[in-house]
C-alpha cells in the first residue's frame, strides 16, 4: 500500500515538450510510471517518445483516462495549468514549478479544494511510491519499498533522509515533497492523515523547516489524531530572522517560525525529533523496534 500514487496511476504531463518536461518524463517512464498523455497547447497530435501529446488536458483525459497530472510549465503559466488540470477532472495535480506569485496561489488553493481535487506543491519535488510509481523529479534509485511514510517541505534534504533510511534497510511506502512555498496545496496535516489511514505505513517521517506554522499545526494534529509513531527533523536552527533562506516560505518573521519553536512543538506532541538527517534513520529504527 501507499498514498496518492501507485501502479494504477495514469499520469498526464503538462508541459511535456519543454526541456524539463521531456527529461523528467523519460526518467518517470524509466522508473515504471505509466505516463499516458502529455499536454502542450499547439502540439496536439505529436508524440513525445511513445507518449501522445494533446492540445488540452480535457482532451487528454477523455482519450487516455489519465487520473493524475504533473506540471512542468514556467511560473507565469503554472496557475492556468493547475486550473485546467482540475477542470479536466484530474483528482491529483502535482506542481513542480517554482516561483508562482503567492497572491495567485490563494485563489488557486481554494479553487482546487472546492472542486474536490488535491494539489501537491507548487515548488516541490513530487512524490514516489517505491517500486511502483514516481511523479516528479525525485531520484528514484534512492527509495526502497517498506513501512515508512515520509513528508517534507524540501527537495535535496528529502533525498538525503530517504537515502539514510534506505541504507539502514528502512524502506518507504510513499515519499512526498509538499513544497517550499508559503501557500501550498497539501499540508503536513493532509499528508499525516493519509499516512495514518494507510495500513502499510507503520511510522512517519516529517521534515520541516523555518517559516510559517505548518509544523506547529502538524504537532497539534499528531498529539490528538495520530496513532503511528512520528520522527521529525527541522532545518534552519542557524538561520537568521528576516532573511529568505532559498525557499520563498523559509523565512523567520520577527520571532515566529523558528526551528527551535517547531522542534519544541513536535517534541511536546510526542514526536521523536532528530538532530541531523542521519539521526532520522536511527530514530525510525528505534520506533519500529528494529
Amino acid at each position, binding site marked *: 500500500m501507499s498514498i496518492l500514487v501507485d501502479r494504477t496511476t495514469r499520469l498526464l504531463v503538462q508541459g511535456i515538450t519543454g526541456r524539463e518536461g521531456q527529461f523528467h518524463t523519460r*526518467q518517470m517512464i524509466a522508473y515504471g510510471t505509466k505516463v499516458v498523455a502529455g499536454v502542450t497547447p499547439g502540439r496536439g497530435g505529436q508524440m513525445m517518445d511513445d507518449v501522445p501529446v494533446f492540445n488540452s488536458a480535457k482532451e487528454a483525459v477523455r482519450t487516455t483516462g489519465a487520473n493524475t497530472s504533473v506540471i512542468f510549465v514556467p*511560473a*507565469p503559466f503554472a496557475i492556468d495549468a493547475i486550473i485546467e488540470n482540475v477542470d479536466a477532472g484530474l483528482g491529483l495535480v502535482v506542481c513542480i514549478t517554482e*516561483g*508562482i*506569485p*503567492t*497572491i495567485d*496561489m*490563494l*485563489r488557486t*488553493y*481554494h479553487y482546487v479544494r472546492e472542486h474536490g481535487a488535491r494539489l501537491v506543491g507548487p515548488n516541490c519535488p513530487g512524490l514516489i511510491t517505491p517500486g511502483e510509481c514516481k511523479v516528479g*523529479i*525525485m*531520484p528514484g*534509485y*534512492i527509495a526502497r519499498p517498506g513501512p515508512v511514510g515520509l513528508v*517534507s*517541505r*524540501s*527537495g*535535496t*534534504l*528529502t*533525498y*538525503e533522509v530517504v*537515502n539514510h533510511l534506505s541504507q539502514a534497510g528502512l524502506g518507504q511506502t510513499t515519499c512526498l515533497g509538499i513544497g*517550499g512555498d*508559503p*501557500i501550498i496545496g497539501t499540508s503536513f496535516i493532509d499528508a499525516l492523515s493519509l499516512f495514518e489511514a494507510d495500513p502499510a505505513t507503520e511510522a512517519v517521517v516529517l*521534515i520541516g*523547516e*523555518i517559516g*510559517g*506554522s*505548518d509544523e506547529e*499545526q502538524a504537532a497539534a494534529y499528531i498529539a490528538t489524531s495520530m496513532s503511528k509513531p512520528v520522527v521529525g*527533523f527541522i*532545518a*534552519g*536552527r*542557524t*538561520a*537568521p530572522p528576516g*532573511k*529568505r*533562506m*532559498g*525557499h*520563498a*516560505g*523559509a523565512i523567520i518573521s*520577527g*520571532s515566529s517560525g523558528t*526551528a527551535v519553536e517547531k522542534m519544541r512543538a513536535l517534541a511536546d506532541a510526542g514526536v521523536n525529533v532528530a*538532530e*541531523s*538527517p*542521519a539521526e532520522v534513520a536511527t530514530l525510525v529504527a528505534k520506533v519500529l523496534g528494529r
Partner: protein
Amino acid sequence: MNIHEYQAKQLLAPYGLPIPRFGVADTPAEARAIATAFGVPVVVKAQVLVGGRGKAGGVKLANSPDEAEAAARLILGMNIKGNVVRRVLVSEAIDIGKEYYLGAIIDRASKRVVVMASEEGGVEIEQVAALRPEKIIRVQADPFLGLFDYQARELAYAVGLPLNLVGDFVKVAKSLYRAVTEWDATLVEINPLVMAANGALWALDAKMVLDDNSAFRHEFEQLRDVEAEDPFEREAREMGISYVKLDGNIGCVVNGAGLAMATMDLIKLKGGEPANFLDIGGGAKADTVAAALRIILSDPKVKAVLFNIFGGITRCDEVARGILSALEKVPTKVPLVVRLVGTNEKEGREILKQADMITATSMDEAAALVVEVSRK
C-alpha cells in the same frame, strides 16, 4: 523584497490614501527646499529598510526650513542597525490625536488576505501581538470576492474609531487590500494610522513587502535599493544563487535550500560556525560554482569551505568537473572539503582527486572534517 517608506507611499498614493504631503531629499539643502515649499512644520525621517528608526534618532520634527536642514544633516549618514541613511523623507507634520494600526497581509495559515487593526498604533505590531493579542482584530477577505465594507466597518468599530471617521477608515482598509492584490505585496501596513487633533484621518507611515515571485509582472527592480544591499548578496542574486551572509568562518556550497540549512545546522552541531547560507540550485554548472566560491572567499573570515552536493538526478561527474573548473577560475589556499552523492558519485570523486580537496562520503563526516580543518 522590502521597499522604503517613501516608495510605499508613492505606490499607495494613487489609491487615494490620506498621506500627508511629502518629498524626498538626499541632501540637507533639498530637505530645506521641501520644508520651504510646504511652509509648515515638517517631520524629517530616515529612509532605511529596518524598523526602530524613531528610537535610533532617525525621525525629527522641524518647525522651520532651518530646522529641517539641520535635522537632515544629522540624520543623513547616520547608521541605524548597520544601515547607513542615504535619503530622508520630509513630510508635513500632523498634530497627533490618537494612533491606530492598520495592515493587510497574506496569511499562510488561513490562505487568505487578512486585514488587521489595532487601537495600539505607533508601536511594533509584533510587540502588541506578544503582549496584548486581544488588542489586534482580524478579518479574512474572501479569496474570490475580496474585502467587504462591512468587514472593514467591523474593524473600525472594534478599535473604537469615532463614527464620523468610519467611512474614511473603510476606504483606507479597502485600498490596502487592493494594494496587496494589485502590487503582489505580502504585507502593506499603515502604522500609525492617525486621528489628528482636528479629527481627520492620516496615514502617517507606510510599509510594504513585495513578493519576489511576482517580479516578472512588475517593475520591482526599479524599486530595489541596491546601495542598501550587501554587494555579495547582490552578485549572488544576479547569478541566480540564494546567498545569505552570516557571522561564522566555515563557508558552505550546497544544492537545495533545505539541505543547505541542514548543512549549516550540522556544522554548528559539530562545534563550528557557518559563514553563510548558499544554495547553488539545480545542475551545479561551473560558472555558478565559481561565482559561489568567489562570493564565499570574499569574506576574509572564511577559514574552510564545505561543498555538500546531493546529486540526485544530476550526474556527480558533471558536478565534479564544474567544481574543478571553478577552482581554476578562483584559486584558493583555503582548505576545501567536498561531499558528493548521487548518480556517478565514484567517477565524481575520482575526478576530484586531481584537485587538492578533502573528500567525505557522508554529511556527518564532511561537517566534522570541515570544522576540524577550519581550526588549523
